[in-house]
């Protein structure tokens, strides 16, 4: 093979490898180091370094070969030297050429010569000096030819683009991180505002303080047990906090009536799901369907609920979860006209009303979550905390929950087979 052909093949191979290296998404320093090796190996240069800069100031060594690691410490580039590179007249500069107008080379000549550097080439991308490539002489001892300069220019441009792209990606990552923090802050503010609203709703009803917060937490527990994503779980928790927001427009005397209310008052109270929807619908929530969950949390599977009398499949799953959480909290807390019910009694109610008022799958998920907690299989005891320690004590509770799960799963399977 002709030496010139072999040289071309060797150079093309290196350029192809360099393109692949620059386009890669691996470690930045390794990318520069490999690129520098490719450049040195193409012309068999015995030493070299890639230094980067972002404006006048110190040059940071990214890759070095054949030189002492510390040999480039303290190298600086000033504004005039940068301008000199950006002026476009100076590309590469031979260090020993004392006639060069390259002010950087003229200032650093002695040190560069001592380190064995023979050629300095700036990396200029989009009007910015991203750094310099410093190269030693050829192993052959020959001077650089015009072809060599062309090859070096092409490869240095590639390396410069690689460094520039890396910087852009770093800036993008930084901005994305800032945006993420801002978004997290906004979410925190949103959640805090929602919790404040929930507290405001509950303050109106002196007998159900903490109700909205508890419904939010129960809803979250159920959704998590049903395998919802973290985003969806957060959404249902918010829906739980806000499900009674419509009560803000209901007369305080009706809400706080220490007895069963009459039909007229009941009708007034039953306006709250629609009112809640109207309050929540114009707000741009970061989670889906919160207004609908508030609107339909009093619907029943058998169509006897309100405000729209929807049936099973028509009721959004989120509303079914909030409905169960709401009823469970109502049954397990004291009200002005009754004491809270025993857990055994609550389980009986859930069993009886599954399939008519509550969705059996939702009840099963809730029962499973509570059973895991009473068996000590969960880190936190969140349900216990809300209900009080003694409420879920004893083996009886585990049996009740296990039986409820078995029965409801049996019903669910039978239903599935009949379809």
């Amino acid at each position, binding site marked *: 093979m002709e030496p010139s052909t*072999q040289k071309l093949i*060797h150079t093309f191979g290196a350029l192809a490898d360099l393109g692949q290296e620059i386009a890669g998404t691996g470690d930045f320093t390794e990318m520069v180091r490999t690129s520098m*090796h490719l450049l040195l*190996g193409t012309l068999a240069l015995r030493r070299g370094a890639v230094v980067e800069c972002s404006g006048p100031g110190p040059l940071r060594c990214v890759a070095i070969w054949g030189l002492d690691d510390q040999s480039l410490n303290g190298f600086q580039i000033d504004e005039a030297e940068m301008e000199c590179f950006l002026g476009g007249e100076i590309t590469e500069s031979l260090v020993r050429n004392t006639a060069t107008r390259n002010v950087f080379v003229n200032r650093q000549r002695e040190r560069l010569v001592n380190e064995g550097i023979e050629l300095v080439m700036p990396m200029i991308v989009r009007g910015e000096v991203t750094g310099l490539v410093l190269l030693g002489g050829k192993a*052959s001892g*020959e001077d650089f030819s015009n072809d060599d300069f062309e090859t070096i220019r092409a490869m240095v441009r590639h390396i410069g683009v690689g460094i520039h792209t890396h910087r852009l990606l770093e800036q993008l990552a930084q901005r994305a991180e800032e945006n993420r923090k801002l978004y997290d802050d906004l979410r925190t503010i949103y959640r805090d505002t929602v919790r404040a609203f929930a507290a405001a709703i509950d303050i109106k009803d002196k007998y159900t303080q903490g109700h909205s917060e508890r419904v939010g937490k129960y809803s979250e527990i159920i959704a998590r047990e049903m395998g919802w994503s973290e985003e969806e779980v957060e959404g249902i928790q918010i829906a739980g906090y806000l499900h009674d927001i419509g009560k803000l427009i209901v007369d305080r005397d009706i809400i706080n009536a220490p007895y069963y209310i009459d039909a007229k008052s009941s009708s007034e109270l039953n306006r709250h799901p629609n009112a809640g929807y109207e309050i929540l619908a114009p707000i741009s929530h970061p989670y889906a369907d919160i207004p609908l969950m508030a609107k339909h949390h009093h619907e029943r599977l058998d169509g006897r609920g309100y405000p729209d009398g929807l049936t099973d499949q028509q009721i959004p799953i989120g509303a079914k979860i909030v409905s169960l959480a709401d009823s469970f909290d109502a049954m397990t807390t004291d009200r002005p006209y009754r004491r809270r019910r025993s857990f055994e009694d609550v389980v009986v109610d859930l069993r009886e009303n599954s399939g008519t008022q509550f969705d059996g799958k939702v009840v099963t998920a809730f029962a499973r979550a509570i059973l895991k907690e009473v068996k000590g299989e969960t880190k936190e005891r969140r349900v216990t905390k809300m209900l009080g320690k003694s409420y879920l004590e004893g083996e009886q509770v585990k049996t009740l929950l296990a039986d409820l799960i078995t029965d409801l799963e049996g019903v669910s399977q039978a239903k599935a087979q009949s379809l």
Partner: protein
Amino acid sequence: MDTPSGGQVRSHCVGTAAVIYAGDYLNKLSGEKIERECRRQLIGGCRALIIDFSDTKLVNSIGISILLGIIDVAEKSGARIVFSEVNNQTVQLFEMLGLTRHVVLAKDEGEALLNLSRFETTPVVH
């Protein structure tokens, strides 16, 4: 006996010379392993390095750069370096790039050892 060390690089010592096998393709990965092995042998007291290219079909640019680095390290340590059993194509490449100015090429390991024995090696005092 040949022993793989520093990864998958085979090497063995003959007196104060270390024979290191370059493998079939001298690229970044294999080159760095060979470089580490050469450094290890020099630190261990070897006075000469024989890099055996008998299995080597191809040397790319990074391989050239790494070989130049090994030559540099060997020179700084006062150690001699010989490349043995280099195929014709690679010899042409080494000649074209000027590597042959810095290393001796030998037909095989025996010739490399013979070549080294002609030179009296004197310990370098650091």
